[in-house]
């Protein structure tokens, strides 16, 4: 039985469909990630849930109670803004205590709880610092403590870590997840960053142009991206257009890099020939030194290296083939150079066919 249910939600701003027929649900204690590019409607979704905006149509229920029309301050939810919106005229203590004071708790209790929360985010000694004296990461943790203080039943976080540098961000990601799981609060976390979503989420919701494209665990999404948008959001770089036809037990995939033979998949409708998109995971491509022989074996393509980026344990290559290009990996000891030639071999079993257009 889900604790939060959103059905057929619509919201239009100046004739732009910010949220377009969105339905999803969350279980108690679940950590959902809304994943999508900026402007895809994920922030609007949070504003609707928080009651900062009213939907044009559709319903939202929480614990069986209809949220539509309920004032923000009566929902008992938490929302952490992207810019944090810490009150600049209060110190750390005042910020964290704000929600508790709104619940009219006695001041002793407020003080105890604030210190508990500051302990939780490891900011205890900062209680009487001014907001402008804090570093970015410290502010983030104060904002989290402030959101958690009134014990919200649903916590929404709107790209709360996006302004931080990578090292700090990755440290805070696991810290935030640990804290949220420790408290057991149902949470919706908005981000456009795949790695952050993988770190945080129990379940992912992919949004694009106001609509939900796919829902599922990170593993499910990686194994089976719904379309080109999800695939590129997940970081797949080799998403290509193709005309597909049947060739015996195999499929013949005519793409900009040449014709590829792919393994037959059961859920693929088999027409004589049709347009589709497909992806080749970078792990499905093996790299070998270019051979000068004209006759290349099946699924092998010769190409020109246009980019080579060192990734610590491997190199990432960008290879120009025919009218298209592929990204692939080589080991850290490989000696390829930009401008050199390589032969790429695609594993027919690794190819995944996607629905929708590129």
């Amino acid at each position, binding site marked *: 039985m889900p604790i939060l249910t959103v059905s057929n939600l619509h919201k239009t701003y100046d004739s732009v469909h910010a949220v377009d027929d969105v339905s999803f649900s969350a279980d108690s204690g679940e950590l959902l990630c809304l994943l999508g590019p900026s402007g895809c409607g994920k922030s609007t979704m949070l504003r609707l849930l*928080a*009651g*900062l905006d009213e939907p044009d149509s559709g319903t939202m229920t929480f614990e069986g109670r209809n949220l539509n029309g309920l*004032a*923000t*301050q009566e*929902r*008992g*939810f*938490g*929302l952490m*803004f992207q*810019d944090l*919106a810490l*009150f*600049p*005229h209060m110190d750390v203590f005042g910020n964290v205590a*704000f*929600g508790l004071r*709104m*619940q009219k708790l006695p001041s002793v209790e407020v003080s105890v709880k604030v210190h508990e929360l500051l302990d939780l985010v490891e900011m205890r000694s900062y209680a009487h610092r*001014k907001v*402008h004296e804090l570093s970015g990461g410290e502010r983030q943790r104060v904002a989290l403590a*402030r*959101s958690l*203080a*009134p014990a919200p039943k649903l916590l929404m976080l709107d790209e709360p870590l996006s302004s931080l540098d990578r090292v700090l961000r990755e440290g805070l990601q696991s810290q935030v997840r640990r804290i949220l799981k420790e408290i057991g609060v149902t949470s919706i976390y908005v981000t456009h960053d795949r790695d952050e979503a993988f770190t945080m989420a129990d379940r992912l919701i992919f949004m694009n142009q106001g609509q939900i494209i796919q829902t599922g665990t990170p593993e499910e999404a990686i194994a089976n991206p719904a379309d080109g948008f999800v695939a590129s959001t997940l970081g797949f770089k080799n998403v290509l257009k193709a005309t597909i036809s049947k060739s015996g037990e195999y499929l013949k995939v005519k793409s900009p890099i040449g014709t590829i033979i792919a393994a037959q998949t059961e859920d693929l409708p088999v027409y004589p020939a049709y347009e589709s998109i497909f992806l080749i995971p970078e792990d499905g491509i093996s790299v070998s030194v270019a051979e000068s022989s004209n006759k290349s074996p099946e699924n092998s393509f010769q190409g020109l290296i246009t980019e080579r980026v060192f990734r610590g344990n491997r190199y990432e290559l960008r290879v120009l083939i025919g009218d298209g290009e592929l990204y692939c990996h080589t080991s850290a000891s490989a000696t390829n150079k930009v401008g050199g030639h390589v032969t790429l071999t695609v594993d027919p079993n690794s190819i995944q066919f996607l629905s929708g257009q590129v």
Partner: protein
Amino acid sequence: MTAGRLLLLVPLAYLAIFFAYPLGSILERSLGGDSGFGFDPFRVLLSDSYYLGRIWFTIWQAVVSTLLTLAVGLPVAFLFAKYEFPGKTLLKALSTLPFVMPTIVVAMGFTALFGSQGIINSVLMSTFGMDEPPVRISNSLTIIFMAHAFYNYAIIVRIVSALWSNLDPSLEQSAKVLGAGPIRTFYHVTLPMLLPAIISGSLLAFAFSFTSFAVVLVLGGPEFATLEVAIYELTAKLFRLPLAGALAIVQLGFTYLFLVLYARFQEQSVVRMDLKPRDATTHHATRWKDKIFVVGMILILLAMLSPLIALVVRWFTIEGGFGTTQMANLFGSDSRGSYFHLSPVKIIWNSLRFALTTVFISLVIGTIISYCITNARRKWRTYADALVMLPLGVSAVTLGFGYIIALGRPPLDLRGSWLILVIAHSLVAYPFVIRSLLPVLKGMNPNLREGAAVLGATPTKIFMLVELPLIAPALLVGATFAFAVSMGEFGASLILVRAEFTTMPVAIFRFLGLPGAANLSMALGMSCLLMAVVSVGFIAIERFRYKGVGGF
């Protein structure tokens, strides 16, 4: 939202009853005549080169005065925004004094300083053995411009330094890192961010110069007349009421035009910025360069204040005696020492309580209107903004006449009540609250409000706990001006109040009207007292800012 709409009715009713209705009554009187409302006065006006000349003169002298005011006000604003130094609070309070002084007092001060027998000429003549006074600026345009700048520079200082002291210094620092020198940093980064405040201040300075009356009449002499002076002459000397009414409408029309243009410009120049608490932006002058600047600016400021200092000097030196006799005169129990059996203490108390009530009314009305304008739809905003600023285009004297005509008869008879005076003052004062509040409201991060709502705060709580502390500095600026406007206002006070409600400027005027050195001493003494009371008031407000708001 409906509660917000209802709240809007308060200022609307207030403006309708206390602004539109009295003004309409004057116009009905002057233009209505026996044959009904007509356009003849306008035709006369537009075909008379004298009055067209007055319109042109009024506009260009206001422009020049405003530019001069800016040139004086901006460096002082910088001083107060960026530096901490001993005696800052006192100096800041003193620097706002000119704005409060009744015109007659300022005229006295200017004459005492620049007149042919004034301090400057006496010193120059005795030093260089000259026979003729070398500085001759009485009855000239120069002294009008000087007086306008003297009066209004405090507006620029207050409004601009309030924003300047909260600007994030890292913005200027990043411009410097990007290779901009101090001048380019100011021009490309600081100035654009300060622009809303600068324009706000300039508008107020412009409005006061545009409707300038007493300065032009007393200091400028007969050949210079602004529209306001022309209206006064038509009304009081030539008794051509229809023409005066038409001229008043023309003046109001121009004011509205300027206000709309201003509001348009303001709308474009508003940038949302993160404001920093003051203690993060000011610093003590430690480098030599800074020290020289601070000391130099303080000297310039004292020079600015010299007309007022001249008054104090004159009070102490008049009749050759020293201050104690003057004091004894002022507070003496003999019949000369009390004015209509009112003790100076009672007069001070009158001024103070009127001023405090004016502050209260202006803050309430100004805050409600500012919120309504901030939340209004874009296309209405500029017109509404201009409309609510319209009282700036009407002098307190005109307003006073309107009250006598409209509010001295049923259904609303307020004659004899001191409320009528406070209402007149608040109409002149609340535009200051709006001008200092609007930039802050527009610049406020809406997420703060929403964040508080999500944390369970009701709209009332949000206002009290989040918005009020953040707009408090702007409210204090507004309050300072409301206080100053009421303490120094003279025209409406003279027309409207009964003897028992005499205020300090009115008392000064009455003493000046009586012959004899003792009465002049009285007038000078009351002027000095007014300066002292207002300074104390300003310092109290400043203290309140530091205690209550933590310098934010």
